[in-house]
């Protein structure tokens, strides 16, 4: 192959670049003022779970900045060491190792999905460093692991909230249509576990794939099942919006319950007018401006919503709220422990009592590393494209 001097030069440059890349040690993040407290985070800011990870990442950055402007914690600035795992459990584990071995963080707030969280847990358990997860599944805190906590509601609590509402409305025979994604499957299983406690029976149990574009056949089956009084759709992403649209197109007319997994403005936008009358359990954050002034969460929720929306120009989401609660619980624990010793921080997190957060009221204990009850969910109904809280009967 004939070579010009130019291309030879370019190749030499490429060779030099590669050599440089191969020898330069991996940098360990920016270092700020003297002796910062290092808090780690691995979130799925890109990839299929980015709609969860992105608001989490923005919230964490925002509040670490705010805390540092106020003088930090224990008089020391906080340094957030944040990595994006792209939703890949293997990468998450590598970054977790990096946080522990290389960045020497005192604690970690992150783990966007259940898969990435479960992959990272052994790293933190082995290193005895507290890990506050932002992922949904109950398996994260059940059985209780010494160093693992989480802030999001579990599917079980959401199921209980929904069934409480159904019971109050006298609905005892329901149909279920669940997504086969992780969220839908897990919630379906949790709901089936507790449904009996409310005297409700599931007459028909259908499912759909995460990328299905039409759920009419399944909904038709439900429509043609005798005696069904309401329909519950545990699901996540675009599926529930399609279910809601198909549901309206078929004119089923029974009360439709969605899950907290779609408690966001984008669901209402996706489902359009079909969402009218749909009920779902959601954290107080979603209806910050509609909360009564006496509501204990009012102040926290309004403040977080305002800060987040001003800083990012995007509407607040419950997922970011999990991040907010995670970092707040951790910072309060560090203040309480008056130390950055991981063991003392862990003990202080476990002793969290009556913390009023964006997601709910947390009271943790050695047997409960989540600390949320059904009262942290509000039952909402969609009316005219907006949320209407349903008063407790």
């Amino acid at each position: 192959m004939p070579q010009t001097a130019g291309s030879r030069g370019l190749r030499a440059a490429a060779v030099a670049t590669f050599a440089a890349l191969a020898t330069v040690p991996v940098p360990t993040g920016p270092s700020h003022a003297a002796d910062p407290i290092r808090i780690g985070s691995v979130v799925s800011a890109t990839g299929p779970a980015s709609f969860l990870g992105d608001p989490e990442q923005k919230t964490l950055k925002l509040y670490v900045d705010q805390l540092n402007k106020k003088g930090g914690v224990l008089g020391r600035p906080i340094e957030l060491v944040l990595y994006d795992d792209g939703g890949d459990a293997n990468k998450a584990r590598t970054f977790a190792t990096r946080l522990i071995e290389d960045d020497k963080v005192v604690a970690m707030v992150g783990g966007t999905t259940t898969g990435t969280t479960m992959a990272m847990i052994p790293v933190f358990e082995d290193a005895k460093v507290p890990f506050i997860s932002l992922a949904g599944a109950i398996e994260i805190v059940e059985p209780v692991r010494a160093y693992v906590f989480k802030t999001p509601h579990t599917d079980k609590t959401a199921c209980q909230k929904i069934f409480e509402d159904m019971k109050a409305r006298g609905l005892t025979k329901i149909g279920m249509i669940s997504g086969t994604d992780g969220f839908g499957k897990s919630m379906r299983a949790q709901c089936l576990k507790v449904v009996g406690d409310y005297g409700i029976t599931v007459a028909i149990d259908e499912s759909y794939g995460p990328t299905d574009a039409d759920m009419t056949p399944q909904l038709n089956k439900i429509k043609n099942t005798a005696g069904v009084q309401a329909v519950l759709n545990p699901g996540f992403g675009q599926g529930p919006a399609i279910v809601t649209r198909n549901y309206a197109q078929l004119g089923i007319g029974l009360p439709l319950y969605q899950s907290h997994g779609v408690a966001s403005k984008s669901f209402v936008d996706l489902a359009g007018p079909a969402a009218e009358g749909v009920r779902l359990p959601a954290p107080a954050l979603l209806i910050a401006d509609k909360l009564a002034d006496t509501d204990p969460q009012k102040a926290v929720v309004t403040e977080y919503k305002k800060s987040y929306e001003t800083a990012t120009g995007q509407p607040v989401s419950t997922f970011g709220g999990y991040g907010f609660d995670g970092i707040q619980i951790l910072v309060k624990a560090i203040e309480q422990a008056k130390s950055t010793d991981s063991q003392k921080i862990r003990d202080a997190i476990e002793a969290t009592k009556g913390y009023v957060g964006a997601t709910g009221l947390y009271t943790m204990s050695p047997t409960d590393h989540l600390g949320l009850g059904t009262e942290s969910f509000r039952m909402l109904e969609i009316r005219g494209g907006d949320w209407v809280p349903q008063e407790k009967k």
Partner: protein
Amino acid sequence: MLKTLLSSRLAVLLLLAVVIALVPVLAPSSFYLRVAALVWVFALAALGLTILMGYAGQVSLGHAGFLGIGAYAVAIGPARLGLDPLLSLVLGAVLCGLVAYVVGKPILRLKGYYLAIATLGFGLIVALVLTSEGAITGGPDGMQVPRMTVLGWRVSGIQTWYWITGGALLIGALLALNIQASPSGRAFRALHDSEIAAAGVGVDVASKKLAAFVISGVYAGVAGSLLALMNGFITPEAAGFMHSIELVAMVIIGGLGSVVGTVVGAAFLVVLPQALTMLHEYEQAVLGLLIMAFMILLPAGIVPSLRRLVLERVR
């Protein structure tokens, strides 16, 4: 002299062994060991593709499927069937070989783009099954992989896994180099250059293609098992499309058909995302640009292009 050295099998193995031995000496913390161990694991998986793509000239866009089968073999075997992890690893490798044989038999009749799409389909099906069969595989949230114990010794810790993966890579490289130099290797290369010509000189085209596919499937399966055992946890995205593409990219970036190139390609794609984290939002974009730049500037892949450069200089 240099030329013979650069193409000698022993030199390649020695080079790899020296690098594997040196990393722990130079690594400032065990995080670097983990990254290196991941390089060895992915290089092992990619070595299979080197045999399939680099030697025999057949493409596969679904190789993460085998990675997934191997990974779930060591998860499901001990957890659900009560099998020994080491036995599960072996069974996983056998299963990968069988699956490759059964799947490869019909689809290797296809050529070029059609073969690519068929293998793509295979990978997607494996990922789909792993995601959907929640009762066995734990579904999309993944499942725990029980710790391996060999003769009462509990295999854990990154140091241990570093040497296991490094050793596995050396064995894999040795086999790949020997295959390349064997009559089968020559048949593979004949196939690569021209199927018709290969058939004309008496190469059993169909069975050689199938052999390459089965070998490559076993490589990926063993790598998957090692990955799962090392991580102690596995999710279905191990078998995902992105991982299949990553494996192909490793083989091509490093240099198609070169064993050292495959390891360099794996290092490129495993280490760079770690090195680029300081760029935050721009990480993915820069990674993409770097891959493009390397393909444009070193079109034959990093190792073959550099080797040619060095040889030109010497002459």
